[in-house]
């Protein structure tokens, strides 16, 4: 009985999991880096994405397919800077997969390719649930995406030498399309410069800095710690006098805090995709920025 059950299970899994041909097996931790891996790897790669845009990437529910992919991956594309500290180190260690151990070519960190902002000068425990290496939410500045793409193209070529020319060609193609798109985005972002906004917390930093949005305040100043009653009272007083244009919320944030403040001070909430898949329109990296800028521009009108 037990054996027959195991055999049935085995047959079912086998039917579903047989790879069509020898592709490079990639485990990406976020939807954005998964999307980038597909852009750069084309049909030479098979990408599994561990989290969707609407999940908090700090936490992950253990699904069998995730553990299975960690064991068989040729390349892990992580965000890094401690974003996945809650689960990726455990997963990689328990997978026993030597190919993707941190420090080896099979382990790629996007954050290593860019300069991080908000790096604390001293790790002070009073600052909240901060990231000692700096702010890890780098994907919302298109200049960062270009840097990460350059590094990832080189890495793909390095671990899969027979297809190196293919990756180089795809990488160059991506860069030229990205540069054109960036010209378009810079034009769309120009009128947004200096617009006063309120954010939930620092995961919109790169976006605000790239566009030049004027961050008046954060609803949750210490990441991961609910704001106190005193802080919220002071915030509403301050913002009633000095009104922002909008309250920015990421699709994965709980809407309660933003909506509460919106009712208090009579300022609209703008929901941004934050990540590929965060809104129905943000289907890939290009539409992620198109949609983000469209939503911001509409709110300013």
């Amino acid at each position: 009985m037990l054996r027959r059950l195991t055999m049935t299970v085995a047959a079912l899994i086998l039917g579903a999991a047989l790879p069509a041909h020898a592709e490079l097996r990639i485990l990406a931790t976020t939807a954005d880096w998964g999307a980038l891996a597909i852009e750069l790897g084309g049909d030479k790669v098979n990408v599994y994405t561990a989290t969707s845009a609407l999940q908090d990437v700090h936490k992950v529910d253990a699904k069998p397919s995730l553990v299975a992919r960690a064991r068989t991956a040729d390349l892990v594309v992580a965000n890094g800077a401690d974003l996945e500290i809650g689960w990726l180190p455990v997963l990689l260690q328990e997978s026993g997969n030597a190919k993707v151990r941190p420090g080896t070519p099979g382990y790629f960190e996007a954050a290593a390719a860019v300069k991080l902002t908000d790096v604390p000068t001293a790790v002070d425990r009073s600052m909240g649930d901060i990231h000692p290496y700096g702010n890890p939410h780098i994907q919302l500045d298109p200049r960062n995406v270009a840097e990460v793409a350059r590094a990832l193209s080189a890495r793909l070529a390095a671990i899969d030498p027979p297809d190196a020319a293919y990756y180089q060609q795809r990488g160059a193609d991506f860069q030229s399309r990205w540069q054109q798109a960036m010209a378009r985005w810079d034009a769309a972002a120009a009128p947004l410069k200096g617009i006063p906004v309120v954010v939930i917390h620092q995961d919109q930093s790169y976006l605000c800095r790239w566009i030049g949005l004027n961050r008046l305040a954060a609803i949750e100043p210490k990441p991961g710690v609910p704001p106190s009653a005193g802080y919220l009272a002071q915030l509403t007083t301050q913002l009633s006098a000095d009104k922002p244009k909008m309250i920015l919320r990421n699709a994965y944030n709980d809407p309660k805090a933003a909506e509460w403040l919106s009712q208090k001070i009579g300022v609209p909430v703008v929901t941004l995709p934050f990540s590929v898949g965060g809104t129905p329109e943000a289907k890939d990296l290009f539409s992620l920025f198109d949609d983000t800028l469209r939503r911001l521009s509409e709110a300013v009108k």
Partner: protein
Amino acid sequence: MSDFMANLSILWPALLAGVLVSLSHVPLGQQVLKRGIVFIDLAIAQVAALGVIIAQTIGLELHGWMTQVAAVVAALLGAMLLTWTERRRPEVQEALIGVLFVLASTAQILLLANDPHGGEELKDLLAGQILWVSSDQLLRAAVLTAIFLAVWFRWRTRMGHVGFYVVFAVMVTMSVQLVGVYLVFTTLIVPALATYRHAAGRQLVLGYALAAVSYLAGLAASVITDLPSSAVIVWAMAVLAIVLHLTARPADRR
């Protein structure tokens, strides 16, 4: 190695973790149900997590085994408190357990509000996931479970209230980190619920069988459907428990 082989190799550590947890929790759960204190595991788990956060707050650098010590010490203190309340106010013991749960959980929020660095990670430190089980954890669990079984089946009648709460605190602190709080609660309570109308002599064996089959079926279903394993196992055990419960004949009862 294909995904298929990887899938099979995932099942075995998780199944082993489930069986180890079941070995201690099925008999413990029958006691818990008899005493009417079913939420004690949730309270103890929160107290253990609070212990880790307090240790961190007062400046102890916690690594590996020090974390375990802090968690177990806190859980034991919580167990002592519950022994005391059971003696002094037995009529409201379950309510007091509920209050302890809420106090321990909110104390963590208050402590982390002032000293929150790494708070998220600390909170998750004691919340295990059955697929993440490491071989170190399995080894530790196996040793603890062997000790538990020896103590339980030799001295249970002479253990008294203090002994029960101490054993319970240690085992739950271990199991929550191994399989997470949902599975701990389920493994504790559901087999006991499924078997309490069966003949007294068969309850333990039936409870063990239910737990083992549920972990196996739940993990298999989780691999096939690719849904989070803990939740699938919880549902598998609940459904199988209903079937098992219905097979009890009133004549079987003592």
